[in-house]
């Protein structure tokens, strides 16, 4: 691998302590993510995928070990600095879309830019471009409840992309969608990656995972495999 690592995890563990009981959600995980990669993170429910994602996305800090973003230990950054980086450098996509119900699509897409100190006019102009990129510009003034699940997820992806982030983190983005819509969303991520966008995607659908060049498997918080295929498998038709 020639690219310098965008993200580097070194012996990362995350332990939750609730009522005296320690739950190790992530144990001693190390790997790098290079600029331009698309990575699938797989594992059964409760294996620590979301916990790992939260640390990569600067929402959480490791109990042990370190997460480096472009060479900087994120634990050394202030809470405000991590927030600023989330606004500018991280794009989140969630399983349940997480759009603000009381704002229309374009306002939702523009939201991260509010926290980048960008004027409303420019926010809306960039949100339009972002909606255009996911094919949702015609629904700009629609509210989330007026959109289907797949459309909401497209709007959420437009929001994740608006600040031109270093990395897009998607936590089971197709988990709430039917397989056909899920495949469309997956195709969208693949297309984004072809333009150079780094993407990390959590999934427990092996069919989706095979669309990614690299797959990381977690089990009980531990990394059990990290495989990169040089040859993409021929795309299988979606199972219904």
């Amino acid at each position, binding site marked *: 691998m020639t690219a310098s690592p965008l993200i580097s995890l070194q012996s990362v563990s995350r332990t939750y302590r609730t009522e005296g009981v320690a739950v190790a959600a992530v144990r001693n995980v190390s790997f790098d993510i290079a600029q331009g990669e698309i990575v699938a993170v797989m594992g059964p429910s409760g294996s620590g995928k979301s916990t790992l994602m*939260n640390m990569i*996305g600067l*929402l*959480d800090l490791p109990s042990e070990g370190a997460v480096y973003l472009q060479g900087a230990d994120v634990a050394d950054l202030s*809470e*405000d600095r991590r*927030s*600023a*980086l*989330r*606004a*500018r450098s991280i794009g*989140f996509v*969630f399983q349940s879309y*997480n759009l*603000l119900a*009381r*704002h229309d699509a374009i306002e939702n897409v523009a*939201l*991260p830019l*509010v*926290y*980048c*100190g960008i004027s409303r006019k420019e926010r809306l102009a960039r949100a339009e471009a972002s909606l255009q990129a996911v094919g949702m510009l015609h629904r700009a003034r629609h509210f989330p409840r007026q959109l289907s699940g797949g459309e909401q997820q497209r709007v959420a992806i437009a*929001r994740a992309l608006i*600040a031109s982030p270093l990395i897009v983190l998607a936590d089971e983005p197709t988990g709430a969608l039917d397989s056909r819509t899920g495949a469309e969303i997956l195709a969208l991520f693949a297309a984004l990656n072809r333009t150079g966008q780094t993407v990390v995607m959590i999934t427990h659908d092996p069919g989706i995972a095979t669309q990614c060049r690299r797959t990381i498997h977690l089990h009980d918080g531990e990394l059990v495999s990290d495989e990169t295929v040089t040859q993409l498998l021929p795309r299988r038709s979606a199972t219904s």
Partner: protein
Amino acid sequence: MTMLQGFQIALHALRLNPLRSFLTMLGIVIGVASIVTVFAIGSGAQLRLQEQIRSIGANVLMITPGAVYQGGVRLKDGSKLTMTESDVQAILEQIPEIQAAAGSIAGTAQVIHEGKNWNTTINGTTSGHFLVRDWQLAAGRSFSATEESGAGKVVILGSTVARELFASGDDPIGAQIRIMKVPLEVVGVLDRKGPAQDDVAFVPLTTAKLRFLGSASNINRDSVAYIIAKVAADGQMAGARAEIENLLRQRHRIPAGQEDDFKVQDPAAAMEAQQGAIRTVALLLVAIASVSLLVGGISIMNVMIVSVTERTREIGIRRALGGRMRDIRLQFLCEALVLCLLGGAIGVAGGVTLSMTVARMAGWITSIDGQAIGLSLVFSIATGLIFGFYPAHKASKLSPIEALKTE
């Protein structure tokens, strides 16, 4: 995030739930409206008193009837006219500090001029009255000596009466008016002195006794209802007062130890004391109104806490998308501030309307005071900051991961 964006988000959120927003700010609305109204009525009352103090004239003493005993029974103050015209004369001649003095009797009657009529105070007095009160004539002249001694059929009008009886082009001087069927010639019109003072018509004391009020049983030929006297200088008020008291006790033959049958008052001083009392009452009312503001603040805090709980997921989303803790705090603080400011503005409008209505209906003078309005708005902002801070702080402290997990 800027303050402006904070306010935009706040307005957006509050518009989505207009009824709830309005009910939330109701306490502030009522509190601010009460404060503005109390201030308006209070300072109106102050103004009215100040005007009265000015209208009495500087350094004026007023002598009114006091206690009267009849067969060992003390009668109500003023139930008998105990002062006489000779008392006036004695005060004027024997007390050097007194510059001018006049006795008066007064009643109300209908004043008629060519189809127009007006109910007003008829004051029978002497030309000394105008000297005591520093009251100038706007037109015409005062009573002449012969009119004063011979019950001349003349009248001097206060400006309100002149305005009510005469059209603006008409010259009242020389015109005939009628009071209780007696025709009188208008010889003078007085300067304006204030709405409460100008509604009066003066006739010579002798005229009043002989032609209007003489039939009243408690009036004998020499008596007057009250005396006003002007003291030459401010520092001589106390001395002059004591001398008048001595003189009148002598003249009325009041034995040592018995209560005076008259009272010497310094109306300006009495009114100043009254002014202090009004201030105290107004402050008390403002304090009570502030409790409403406090309750309003608590209600805002309550609703904001509920709102933060309801919007936990929104907070999580905003945090994940780059909102800093202080951005979340600012957002909710702005909401509380907007509620309070809007409530304050509605309250000011309500208070102004209410005090103007009171002014019209009760005939009180009210004065809308920019300072009171400013103060109420400052109070509103302070309430918003104080009671909005805790919910906003609570919101900012939420863990984004936990917040995103809530339904």
